[in-house]
């Protein structure tokens, strides 16, 4: 009942909004004025444009329909409405799927290698491969990407290469980040992928700033910004949504809602209709899609990108998915969720499986090809992994560079102190691992 009332109200105000409002000369902007149209009264408080009511109502989550989840494929990889088939060229579909498998294989090997103590840390993307490849494939490769940390697939799509990723995880001398950050904190100027940092959500208002600068420079590019539903609770998310809307920045906020922030289920994270419902409250066009349906993610991102460029305004995309893996190698997720729950999701909604069914039905993929490709990738990852392990870490002086563009005197002094110290006490340090 209430729901109907509110929807009726929404329609009413839209009608009223299109009706010219009489403004009297000299009428103060901050004053409330009205114009009787169809029995309703149009108000303009400076803070909101709405109408009076004599019915005392409270509005909550149930006052509105929850945002529906856009999908293209059913669980068997069949396109439900042919009009929504994005008709991605075959070669591109194969590249998307091969990328997903590459990420999946790499995740398995690097996860295990962390368990063996060969790298210090790792985070897998199990179950979220569809969000990475569906979205990345719908972007221009020059669109600037800001990520959280579970978006490695975007880099794979952009041909960043597993060599660079593995070098980063080792922090060896070939790592573009010079071995300074923890594993999985990838970044590439060349691939327009802003280097990941650990503090959650800081990248959101930054993405807005970059998008604003893009708009001024008329670059005809958008900024893509990924984050999880947990990160959306940080103050920076609020800042970013509001800044993007008011300053009209062509940024896509892409939320991976995978049900958990480490151990925290979404019921402890928020009580509204997910992250998507917040979009309209900020005046941001919003799409909620099935994150396990790669084609739905692709369509949503493509539409969002077109809207951003045409309107110079932000879009929020909430991709509903499920984190199949542990949060990280420092986490055992069986401590807070059942193995059955994970199995259920793995069986009913794995994005890789669904996409594979889709391309198989199109005759683009076979079981033999699957086996062969997995085998090739596995060998390649292991080879690169072993090579990466043998490469020395960067020179120790690299610890002191890039704090500032130039090296200030006091940092030069500290570098020299360490050099001098090592010349006497070097045997107590792992010098042999460094160049």
């Amino acid at each position: 009942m209430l729901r109907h009332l509110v929807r009726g109200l929404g329609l009413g105000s839209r009608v009223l909004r299109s009706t010219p409002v009489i403004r009297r000369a000299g009428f103060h902007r901050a004053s409330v004025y009205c114009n009787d149209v169809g029995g309703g009264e149009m108000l303009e408080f400076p803070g909101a444009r709405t109408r009076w009511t004599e019915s005392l109502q409270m509005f909550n989550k149930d006052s509105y329909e929850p945002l529906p989840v856009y999908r293209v494929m059913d669980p068997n990889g069949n396109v439900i409405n042919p009009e929504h088939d994005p008709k991605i060229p075959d070669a591109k579909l194969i590249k998307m799927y091969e990328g997903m498998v590459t990420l999946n294989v790499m995740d398995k090997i690097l996860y295990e290698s962390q368990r063996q103590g060969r790298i210090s840390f790792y985070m897998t993307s199990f179950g979220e491969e569809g969000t990475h490849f569906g979205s990345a494939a719908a972007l221009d490769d020059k669109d600037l990407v800001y990520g959280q940390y579970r978006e490695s697939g975007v880099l794979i799509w952009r041909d960043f290469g597993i060599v660079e990723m593995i070098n980063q995880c080792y922090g060896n001398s070939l790592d573009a980040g010079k071995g300074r950050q923890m594993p999985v904190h990838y970044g590439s100027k060349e691939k327009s992928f802003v280097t990941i940092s650990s503090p959650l959500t800081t990248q959101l208002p930054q993405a807005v700033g970059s998008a604003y600068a893009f708009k001024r420079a008329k670059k005809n590019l958008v900024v893509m910004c990924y984050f999880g539903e947990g990160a959306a609770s940080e103050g920076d998310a609020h800042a970013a949504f509001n800044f993007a809307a008011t300053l009209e920045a062509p940024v896509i906020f892409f939320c991976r809602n995978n049900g958990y922030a480490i151990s925290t289920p979404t019921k402890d994270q928020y009580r509204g209709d997910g992250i998507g419902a917040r979009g309209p409250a900020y005046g941001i066009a919003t799409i909620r899609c099935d994150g396990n349906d790669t084609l739905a993610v692709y369509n949503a991102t493509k539409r969002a990108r077109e809207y951003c460029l045409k309107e110079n305004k932000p879009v929020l995309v909430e991709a509903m998915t499920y984190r199949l893996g542990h949060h990280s190698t420092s986490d055992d997720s069986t401590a807070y969720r059942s193995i059955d729950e994970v199995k259920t999701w793995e069986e009913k909604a794995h994005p890789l499986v669904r996409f594979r069914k889709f391309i198989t039905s199109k005759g683009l993929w076979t079981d033999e090809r699957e086996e062969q490709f997995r085998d090739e990738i596995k060998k390649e990852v292991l080879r690169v992994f072993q090579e990466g392990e043998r490469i020395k870490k960067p020179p120790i002086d690299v610890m002191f560079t890039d704090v500032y563009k130039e090296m200030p005197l006091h940092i030069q002094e500290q570098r020299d102190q360490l050099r001098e110290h090592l010349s006497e006490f070097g045997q107590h340090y792992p010098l042999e691992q460094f160049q």
Partner: protein
Amino acid sequence: MFRRTVAALGAQWPRRMETRRTAAHFTFTPNQTQPPVQGNSEKLNMYQSITSALDIALSKDPTAVIFGEDVAFGGVFRCTVGLQEKYGSDRVFNTPLCEQGIAGFAIGVAVSGSTAIAEMQFADYIFPAFDQIVNEAAKFRYRTGNQFDVGSLTIRTPCGAVGHGALYHSQMTEGYFAHCPGLKLVIPRGPTQAKGLLLSCIRDPNPCIFFEPKILYRLSQEEVPVDDFSIPLSQAEVVRPGKDITIVSWGTQVHVANEVCDLAEKEGIECELIDLQTILPWDKKTVAESVKRTGRLIVTHEASLTAGFGAEIAASIQEECFLYLESPVKRVTGYDTPFPHVFEPFYLPTKWKLLDAVRKSLKY
């Protein structure tokens, strides 16, 4: 809510202060050293010289944008008056009221290579942006292996005692940021330095925080070069030479110290006064050279004592000048309390407290 009321009042404060000039805790001394550049000059107060710097920055760099709370109409301290009319609302604009958003947005603008000049309405309200500044801006170049940087970012913020600002319109917050490698922190003592140092900050390839002592906005007035000029960062200035004791300070407190130099002179003590200007990375060389000649050092700042930047200077100088020191390095600072309203005259490191310290150092 209260804060917004107070902020809106900000524009009025300096006007009131002008009528209460005699009540200020210091006397402004116009620039007496060599002007940093030749050519025409004009009489400007500090807010006007800041506008002049911003005007030059916008006119010479088409990517430069200015934003923050209430900057569009000219700012609560008038620093951005006329800039939106001159350069357009896409270059000088208001943001929503959210400091972490302002800092994060500014970082993003800088990441894309454009020049970002952000304003925090009061240094007291920079703390919501602490994470963005310390974890992000300061570490951007380092953690990306120099692939990305935010060198074209400058944050301007009014700071310091203003007579009646109490807890949240008086703070000097440089000490919090001095512990953060990657940032540059700059504080001018008057209109000339404000223009030259601000232009240096805007053009420096590192993220800078530019603290503007708000009591100087209108109270200070002097001849400022009209042209574009810059004053180098990380360089202290000896504003008054002397042989008996070195006093190091920055911002408004330089003027307090300058009065103490006059008072001490009458007692036959010649103080050497150094305006540090850049807090990070600071000019240890100039301070150490001075202390090696005078043998004594007092550091004085408005911020509270414990772990204030004075501690860094004191520790470094005793290490550098141990054999030259004839008395312990003294610090004359605010107390380790929040900044109080009615007790401000007692809280501040006044010229009398500083004179007391000078005498004690000489007698040691």
